[in-house]
């Protein structure tokens, strides 16, 4: 049972962070983060993608250790070595990717490591377990039999099971990480009801979300993260939505982007290299049309889940769509598949470089050569000229400025994130694509490598290719692109030429009506 709130006038701090630092491969992801969460209060944590929220959550959850700084929970030093420690101390996490086992029942998931057994008996006391589970489910407002298999539950229901689990572990602080992304309106309302109940029972909550209206609605205090730093914190009442947005995106302008090259062809009036007409897939994208011209860098902004990556995958032939057409260099493509698209001069750098972009255990050279192998030998059994491959690999290595210390035969797994991404990019650039689609090309990469990648993108466009860049970093798109499209919930909602580039406008379009503070 959650503790009853203390009747003192001044609430104590339940969780407090002091100067927490974390770096990966020399890139500082958290820079001296400090803030408090008052007991019984609800803190909203906002920030763009890449601001450091997930790293922070991982540290609190025992999956990562901070490089320096201290964390206190309930007046004791808090340094969990693993998720079990965190749970033991009284912190619970409702992640976006739920930690449930879909092949087990609700009750089994909740009691997975602490099944109630009869004394001296190895058997689970099913009825007791079900009773307890039912009670927990009632607390979260879920009216489902406890022996139901999790596989059959909706995202909303699964989330409630996670919350029930947190309650069963007698959590004092619950962190919600993007809880409403996969919920329906009804489920969201149900969640908020539950949150109100939890607060009334004295629980402390931390709420992380992109949906600013919800944050305004629910939270007492806010902390704004940007580039790993806390740029503002305080009572929610001291913020306005506009101020919040500008705090999230504002940044001291340093020369992060190479000077845009004078486009030899220009984005206006250039020959279209990629045309997407009214592509629709129910539940994913809705009547999306865009045109990419020669020499143009087109940006696609939007939140996660807005359909950008899904659209790119459809264009490349990795996902089906029910309606619409895709034209490359004027030709309608009927059989969309990676092979066909590559033959037509298209390249696609996917969002998940580890799972889809690289053969991690393969060598640097093998990865670089993969797409363009047919250029060096007639597939399938034609003689492959190793010399020719080696020359191409060496050429592209210098083009992408791959770390010279990295051997050609080294497994790609051992490279840093920036170098890994350069390998993927190099692999595609070797094919000299006319259409280059990049999904989050600089995710998880340090500033220096980012600059180099931007240069490569611009060079490539200057040579006449059309580049489509999908990114969650608005800064990046503004610095790089000739034009920016914004997607939200599967639709194109805005189209800005460079003259009209405006951070707030883009973010507002991406967030949409969620920016309106509901009563």
């Amino acid at each position, binding site marked *: 049972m959650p503790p009853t709130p203390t009747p003192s006038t001044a609430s104590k701090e339940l969780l407090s962070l002091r100067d927490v630092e974390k770096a990966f491969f020399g890139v500082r992801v958290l820079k001296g983060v400090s803030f408090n969460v008052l007991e019984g209060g609800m803190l909203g944590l906002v920030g763009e993608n890449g601001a450091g929220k997930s790293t922070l959550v991982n540290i609190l959850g025992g999956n990562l250790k901070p490089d320096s700084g201290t964390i206190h929970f309930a007046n004791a030093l808090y340094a969990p070595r693993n998720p079990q420690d965190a749970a033991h101390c009284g912190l619970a996490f409702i992640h976006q990717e739920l930690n449930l086992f879909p092949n087990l029942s609700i009750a089994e998931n909740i009691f997975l490591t602490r099944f109630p057994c009869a004394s001296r008996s190895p058997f689970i006391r099913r009825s007791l377990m079900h009773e307890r589970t039912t009670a927990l489910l009632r607390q979260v407002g879920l009216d489902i039999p406890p022996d139901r298999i999790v596989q059959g539950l909706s995202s909303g229901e699964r989330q409630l099971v996670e919350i029930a689990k947190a309650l069963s572990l007698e959590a004092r602080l619950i962190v919600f990480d993007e809880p409403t992304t996969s919920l329906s309106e009804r489920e969201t309302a149900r969640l908020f009801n539950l949150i109100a109940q939890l607060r009334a029972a004295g629980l402390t909550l931390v709420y992380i979300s992109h949906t600013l209206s919800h944050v305004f609605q629910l939270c007492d205090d806010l902390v704004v993260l940007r580039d790993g730093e806390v740029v503002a914190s305080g009572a929610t009442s001291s913020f306005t939505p506009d101020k919040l947005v500008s705090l999230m995106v504002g940044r001291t302008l340093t020369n992060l982007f190479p000077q845009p090259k004078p486009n030899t062809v220009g984005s206006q009036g250039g020959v279209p290299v990629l045309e997407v007409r009214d592509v629709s897939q129910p539940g994913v994208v809705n009547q999306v049309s865009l045109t990419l011209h020669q020499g143009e860098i087109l940006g696609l902004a939007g939140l996660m889940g807005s359909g950008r990556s899904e659209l790119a995958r459809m264009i490349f032939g990795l996902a089906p769509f029910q309606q619409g057409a895709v034209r490359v260099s004027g030709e309608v493509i009927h059989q969309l598949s990676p092979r066909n698209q590559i033959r037509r001069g298209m390249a696609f750098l996917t969002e998940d470089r580890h*799972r889809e972009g690289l053969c*991690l255990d393969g060598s640097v050279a093998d990865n670089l050569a*993969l797409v363009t192998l047919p250029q060096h030998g007639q*597939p*399938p059994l*034609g003689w492959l000229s*190793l010399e020719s491959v080696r020359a191409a690999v060496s050429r592209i290595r210098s083009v992408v400025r791959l770390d010279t210390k990295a051997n050609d035969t080294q497994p790609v797994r051992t490279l840093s994130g920036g170098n890994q991404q350069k390998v993927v990019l190099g692999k595609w650039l070797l094919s000299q694509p006319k259409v280059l689609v990049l999904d989050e090309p600089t995710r998880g990469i340090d500033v220096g490598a980012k600059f180099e990648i931007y240069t490569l993108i611009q060079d490539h466009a200057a040579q006449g290719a059309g580049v489509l860049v999908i990114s969650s970093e608005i800064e990046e798109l503004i610095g790089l692109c000739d034009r920016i499209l914004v997607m939200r919930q599967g639709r194109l909602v805005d189209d800005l030429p460079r003259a009209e580039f405006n951070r707030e406008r883009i973010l507002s379009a991406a967030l949409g009506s969620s920016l309106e503070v509901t009563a």
Partner: protein
Amino acid sequence: MKPLSKANNLLLRWTQSEYLVLGLTILLVLAVAPFTPELISTGNLRNILSYMLPLFIIATGMTLVMITGGIDLSVTSIIALTSVIGARLMSHDGGGLPSSGAVLVMLTLGASVGALNGAAITMLQLPAFIVTLASMMFVSGFAVWLTQSKNIYGLPESFLALGQRLPIALALTAALALAAHLILHRTVAGRWLYAVGINPTAAHISGAPVRTITVSAYVASGFCAALASVLLTGRLETASPVLGRELLLDIIGATALGGTSLFGGRGKIAWTLFGVLFLTVLDNALNLLNLSQFSITLTKGLVILLAAVLDALRVRFHIHTPA
């Protein structure tokens, strides 16, 4: 990360070396030869070679399949089926086909069974283990049914020569091994094969024809099994519906021992050669030492466990090697 101690360093270099198994073979010969000098007599070496060749052929096909991350349990049943069908075709009441024709039919048959395996695995998306297991049972049962458990004798000289005349068998094996090696090393298909084994999704996105490559690996495996059957049947002068049945685990063991990973993405024909060589020499040496069948099988088992531990060590050290 602590720097590795000297002993660990040596162990690391050792396990990473491609020639570890070859070295072990040589060690083995050196250790046993003093006790049984016949081991290195020309007659015995001919024996070893003759025994080794069909094994190596099958293992070559198995290597290709394992590089894609799969496995082919049906190879020995393909040996049996192609053996009896080829023999039947060459016999008087079966059509009196000349040996060349029979060999062609055998090879095509082996490749076809492989194609069926590959199709089931890629199109029906079933695990290779079960598909090739069912395949093994069916094909083996079919061979036994066709011949009513009877062996076929009286095969033409021209056919027997393929298996019995060492230079011919050696030439066939060498040609196949060389072809396989070149495919892996010097063709686009070979590179695609490795990519499919390491990460089929990334390979697909990078334009590799994943399905075709996978099916081709199984076709190659079936083909190799059929070719091995030609040699085996010739050497034993008998076409039998249970030919090669006891070889399956030896083949898988030898291939894994050589260093080809069961998880895919790693493997070389040369490695498989070392693995097969080692197992064959071991078998031969133990036989010459007059050890019972028990000791031989037992030792093989211990060797395979050793291979497994080596593999685990390789993987662990591989990951920790600094960039």
